[in-house]
């Protein structure tokens, strides 16, 4: 789990939670923009990707584990996000 045992004033489990909530509110806010444009889609997927990285690294505690586990988890996240972007771009 969270491996940031050292006290970090700006990046700790509490600020991480706040960032995740803030990014969720940004996603929600963007849903009101009546634009099915590529830019909005890209921002939404990038935000989801960033949230995924935070969960994998800091909530699941994969920071510092062997490369294999990281490749599987970040690989899954990257492939899924990339496939969604490509599918939306060609639609």
């Amino acid at each position, binding site marked *: 789990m969270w491996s940031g045992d050292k006290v970090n004033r700006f990046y700790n489990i509490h600020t991480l939670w706040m960032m995740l909530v803030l990014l*969720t509110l940004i996603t929600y806010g963007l849903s009101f923009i009546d634009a099915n444009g590529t830019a909005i889609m890209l921002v939404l997927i990038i935000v989801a990707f960033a949230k995924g990285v935070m969960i994998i690294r800091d909530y699941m505690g994969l920071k510092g584990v062997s490369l294999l586990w990281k490749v599987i988890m970040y690989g899954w996240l990257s492939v*899924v996000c990339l496939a969604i972007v490509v599918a939306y771009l060609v639609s």
Partner: protein
Amino acid sequence: MNKHPKPIPGDLAMWIIIFAELLVFGIFFIAYAIVRINNVELFNDSQLTINRETGALNTILLITASYFVVMAIHALKKNLSKKSSHYLYASIACGSLFILIKSIEFQDKFSAGIDIGTNTFYMFYFLLTLFHYFHVILGLMILFVVAIKTQKGHYNAEQTHAMETAGSYWHMVDLVWIIMFPLIYVVR
């Protein structure tokens, strides 16, 4: 400086289950995006009929539930079993609220005559969200068992393995929803 990587948190068997679950969800997500290519209008119109507010609220609830799980593990590592169990109960409360809100959302759709056979978008909507819904319920059951055992003092600072295993599963449920929320509710 220690060059050895730290072990993966929790039980290896649980991680194999997590990878299998992620693979299945990943295939569903990609299938949704591919099928949408030839049904853009249908998907966009149908998407506007689902409740973004409950989707956002549920995302915040799952993120908060995960936060409490991490706090519970922190507390257990300091041998604060009671405090740890309280964090787990807080997490269970957030997860239960998610289930309640999602159940209301499903009920609303069913009473409006919308179900899995309505159209292709709704087929994916129900398939993905119901599949995830059952994972949340399973995650809640696992957390509940661990919370009771923690409260009874079965775990301590040297025995965090079970809680880390339960936590890993819960975070997987959270991770899947993090992709599902924008994909199903927002991106057009």
